[in-house]
């Protein structure tokens, strides 16, 4: 499972303060600790911490690149902020997070990803909102796949996010997401696109968030999930994800597998 580490986000108080005070050490520390815990990408999200989001994104990317070699996921809904991040990147693998499944937006983001040799997270939602059923989500996934083929973005670099809704909103949704992931991985094309979820949404408003998060993650892995945006500093969720990878025969067991999977 590709762990995309979520902590460098302006929504967190320490990161928000660091952005405002230009305190590199806080960001470098988060980048290094998340890397040590097995992050394969470090998500960078300015949030609402700065008036000039583009400048803040550039600064965060530079801080992270100075601290580790881990690939970066540029997280923003605003194209100029993503572009600022891409321009600051030093050539390491990069993920764009994210774009909606609207054709006209995909026509902008797909060429951008191709140009920068980036991966692209595309959400199964469009102007009509988040679909509530399996079929509509897969239909949008198909639009994403078609656009990737049209623009020449390699399928494994397309990360489709089927959008997890809080379990408190609709308890039928987690199983729908499982089914969507299975269909994306088996019926759309060969090789299939990758799948990703922003996991923590599942547990919004509950009293057992870490437990719900890691249980959900393991379920989704069994249906073919490739990547998740998670708190890699949460040892329990990382241990569960890595162990699921062993039980699903995706990584080879060894007595130190929890350690080697984080290397």
């Amino acid at each position: 499972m590709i762990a995309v580490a979520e902590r460098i986000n302006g929504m967190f108080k320490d990161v928000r303060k660091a952005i405002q005070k230009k305190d590199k050490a806080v960001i470098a520390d988060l980048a290094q600790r998340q890397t040590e815990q097995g992050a394969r990408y470090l998500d960078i999200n300015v949030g609402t911490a700065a008036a000039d989001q583009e400048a803040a994104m550039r600064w965060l990317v530079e801080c992270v690149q100075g601290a580790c070699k881990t690939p970066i996921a540029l997280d923003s809904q605003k194209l100029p902020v993503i572009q600022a991040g891409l321009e600051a990147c030093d050539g390491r693998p990069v993920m764009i997070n994210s774009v909606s499944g609207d054709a006209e937006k995909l026509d902008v983001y797909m060429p951008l990803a191709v140009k920068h040799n980036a991966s692209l997270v595309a959400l199964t939602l469009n102007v009509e909102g988040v679909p509530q059923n399996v079929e509509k989500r897969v239909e949008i996934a198909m639009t994403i796949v078609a656009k990737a083929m049209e623009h020449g973005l390699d399928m494994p670099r397309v990360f489709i996010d089927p959008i997890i809704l809080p379990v408190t909103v609709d308890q039928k949704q987690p199983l729908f997401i499982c089914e969507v992931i299975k269909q994306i991985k088996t019926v759309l094309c060969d090789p299939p696109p990758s799948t990703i979820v922003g996991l923590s949404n599942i547990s919004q408003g509950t009293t057992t968030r870490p437990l719900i998060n890691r249980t959900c993650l393991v379920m989704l892995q069994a249906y073919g999930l490739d990547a998740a945006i998670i708190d890699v500093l949460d040892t329990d969720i990382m241990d569960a994800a890595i162990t699921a990878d062993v039980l699903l025969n995706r990584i080879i067991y060894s007595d130190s597998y929890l350690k080697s999977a984080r290397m």
Partner: protein
Amino acid sequence: MALPALKESYAAGVNVVTLGATRDQGGTRSVAYKIGGAKTLPFMDTDGATGEKLLVAMDVLDIEPDWPDVLKAPYGAALKDPAAWAKKCVEEFGADLICLKLDGTDPDGANRSGEEAVATVKTVLGAVGVPLVVWGCGIDAKDNEVMPKVSAATKGERCLLGPAKQENYKRLAASCIADGHNIICLAPLDINIAKQVNTLVTEMELPADRIVMFQTSGALGYGIEYAYSIQERQRLAALAGDKMMMMPVICDVGYESWRAKEAKSSDAEAPEWGAQAQRGPMWEAASAIALVQAGADIIRMRHPKAVAAVKKALGGLQG
């Protein structure tokens, strides 16, 4: 409409390990090699880079071997002199590397000392310019005594020293770190243990790009399929990005093949199997080619005819 080419693409690949150091690299070798680097399955050059060329290491023993006559014949008197033996392997038989096996240090055999082993290693180093693989006798206590001395005496030569095992890796790993050598991590036909040894050695801070894996090898008819499937699975894991499975692989084909009765039985013992002078090298070459196709980076071999056959086949496969 043209059919699109079906290509597999992989996220990662086999590490590149450098063997040997020339004078300007701090050693005395006339040549240094890189092994590994494949980013696809063996020889699948339509899918991705197949990496560095596979190397043949020919075995030289520090003690006159008890081999079948047909295996001894090409070497003649050189079998009594490791330096002359190594020279013959390189100059006449085209060995890319010499694998000096320190069987003479075995406490149940000649029980030679670490100093004697060092002297032999040095004469072989002086006789040939190719990089050296030095392989202990396999008895842990004795290897722990001998190999650190060999390591120190060859400091800077960037040899490949082995084997490190799950239950005995610290001394050798520490020596390799101190003296700049590469290490062979051995696991007996067990991919889980292979990964574990690699992890343990890496945790001692020997860089992963100085580790070569030895899964142990079978001969044709003697469990080669286990070695084959482990090497295949290991390569797939490396391509998928498992950092503790990305190490290049060494196979010991010569020793395993010539243990098989199909290779070692004399003409008198097995007249119905055809001439041993043909049969033995064929057994060794067939075993080698199978393992090469599973994903190998160095193969240890013994009979010059088998070496020639494998090199010819590799010429066709590697271009």
